[in-house]
């Protein structure tokens, strides 16, 4: 599974009909389940491991995992965006549990919790 969602952390962006994780995936892989309102992955094997969904989630509810065929289970990589939005700290935990941190300059732009879709009003577009 390249990406997983921690459902305990996801607050569905306070009822957003088109939340950031769903909007930012270049492959259209996350969707809001029309029945349950939960965020679900359409097809993990279509994931590019590019991480916009991970970085954009305000709750840090989505985690990137290496596909098991490429490496071991316990290693983790967690990006944290600073409140100032000009730095990102990547927390890297290796298979032995040793943590390392990388703080890198960037320019993260603010992201809205919802966004409308061309052609219809938000209430209509759940499929």
């Amino acid at each position, binding site marked *: 599974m*390249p990406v997983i969602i921690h459902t305990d952390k996801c607050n569905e962006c306070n009822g957003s009909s088109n939340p950031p994780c769903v909007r930012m*995936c270049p492959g*259209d892989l996350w969707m809001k389940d029309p029945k349950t309102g939960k965020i679900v992955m359409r097809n993990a094997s279509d994931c*590019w491991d590019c991480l916009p969904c991970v970085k954009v989630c305000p709750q840090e509810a989505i985690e990137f995992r290496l*596909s098991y*065929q490429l*490496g071991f289970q316990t290693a*983790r990589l967690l990006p944290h965006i600073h409140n100032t939005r000009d730095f990102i700290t*990547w927390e890297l935990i290796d298979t032995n549990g040793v943590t390392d941190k990388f703080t890198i300059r960037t320019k993260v732009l603010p992201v809205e919790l919802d966004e409308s879709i061309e*052609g219809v009003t938000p209430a209509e577009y759940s499929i």
Partner: protein
Amino acid sequence: MEKNVIETDVLIIGGGTSGCLAAVELKELYPNLSVTIMEKAHVDRSGCLAGGMNAINAYLNPGETPESFTKYVRFDSCGLVREDLVLSMSELFEYCVKKVEKWGLPILCDEKGNYVPRGRWNIKINGESLKPIIAKAAKNAGAKILNWVTATNFIMADGKVAGAMGFSIKNGNFFIVKAKATIIATGGAAGIYKPNNAHDAQHKTWYSPYNTGAGYAMGIRAGAEMTSFEMRYIGLRVKDTIAPTGTIALGVGAPQINSKGEKFMAAKYAHIGGDGAPTPYRSHGPLQEIKEGRGPVYLDTRHITAQQARDLKSAFLDMYPSMVLYWAANEIDPSKEPVEVQTTEPYVVGGHTQSGYWVDVNRKTSIEGLYAAGDVSGGAPYKFVSGCWAEGVIAARAAGEYVQKTGFAQIPENVLKDEQERVFSPLMNQTHKIDGINNYDMEVRIQKIMEEYAGGAATFYEVNDERLQVARRRLSTLPDQFKYLMAEDLHDLMKAHEVIDRVYVAQVLVEHMMYRKETRWPGYCTRTDYTELDDTNWLKFVNSRRDPETGNIEMFTRPYEQIVPGDRYKPR
């Protein structure tokens, strides 16, 4: 299903690297023009830049000129490029880079305020957020953005392009965007060959798996002239993650070694630059080592310090974070052991190689009203981020001028109707429960044909006429199968069109590989029946045009013109 009809002066298809810069340039030059971007994902994180970038790979560092750059690119492409195109894009690197820096991209500078070079043509950036930065500039400039609208075909009127059609993957609306000029900027094509990885890592490809050759396919269907598809791109990448190796090779100066520890590039390819040999040779060299039993092949990083290893990881986090997790998950320390490399699945990508639309120096295609920029545009390799920006700017300037003297075309009603039917038929098939094919099955089918008969990784990317004939015959049956494609939902419908587009690209690709009877770019396309480079007969471009009426693909050549003097096989 509703219809959305939009009229715009200029339509840009693909809101990626070149598309965003094209939009800004147009609105800056002509504030009164309406500019619309049609994008299949969301412009904030779409296309190649979704994960970020850590370098600008085409830039004129102090002392370099458009001429010296063109000389290098010509050398890197084994003596054959459109020099007019390479010159014109390199003249705009500075303009584009300065612009994007002004929008907020952090570019690394030394104490004196000069950009930090990484190799001859590269500078280092912290580009994790590069895509949202340029997308915001396009929005701020006043371009109208249609996110989640997958373009499917051009609107053709009187032999001209008069906009494009597509559908929303969010609500299923059919979009008809009528335009006076259209810029195609949908990137290259991945997924034509069997991917390096399988199962849940099948999309762990280097090139964006969501750039599926739509722009090529739309042009092919409309009868646009295409060039150099046979120059496929097969990159040297880090084993398993398929991460770019430039970060390592250029970042810390790591030579390639084989399993015996021999620096084979330096030993065998010294006459063409050793580890600095043209890019195709940097894939061909290691392939030969592996073929002859001296694999695995590595980039030797054992000389680097612990700090340099950290810097490498930081650089990958800006562009390809999975690389860093891979090392942590496999207990690999690049300062203690060399980094294993492999070659990618073949891609068609005009920003690294030169496959794409045949354009003039204004990036005008062979069809009136249509301009092409970025990875989808041909003849000018070595574009990378900055060359794609430059081409977006050039195309925008030309399109902006063109619309001053054109109006909207009269569009025949059947063009719109036929396309709407074609676009939604996989959904209808699902509804009517026909005995159909799902998109994934067709994807695997085409990848199997291409892998086995058209020079896939398992055959060391080698082709010959007989194998290509088989590929041609097998592919020729696929278009008749499109009518059986099924789609459960709109996401699936997008994927059905992706696979349809790939078939068109694959067919043209096979014709191109068959036509060039020499091996100009070993590694990219090695012909076992014509093993040598043959300047006497093949110092020219192989071009194609599919007849929209008959579906026949006509092959022909265009002459090469040397503009920058000097030895075509020397980097300086």
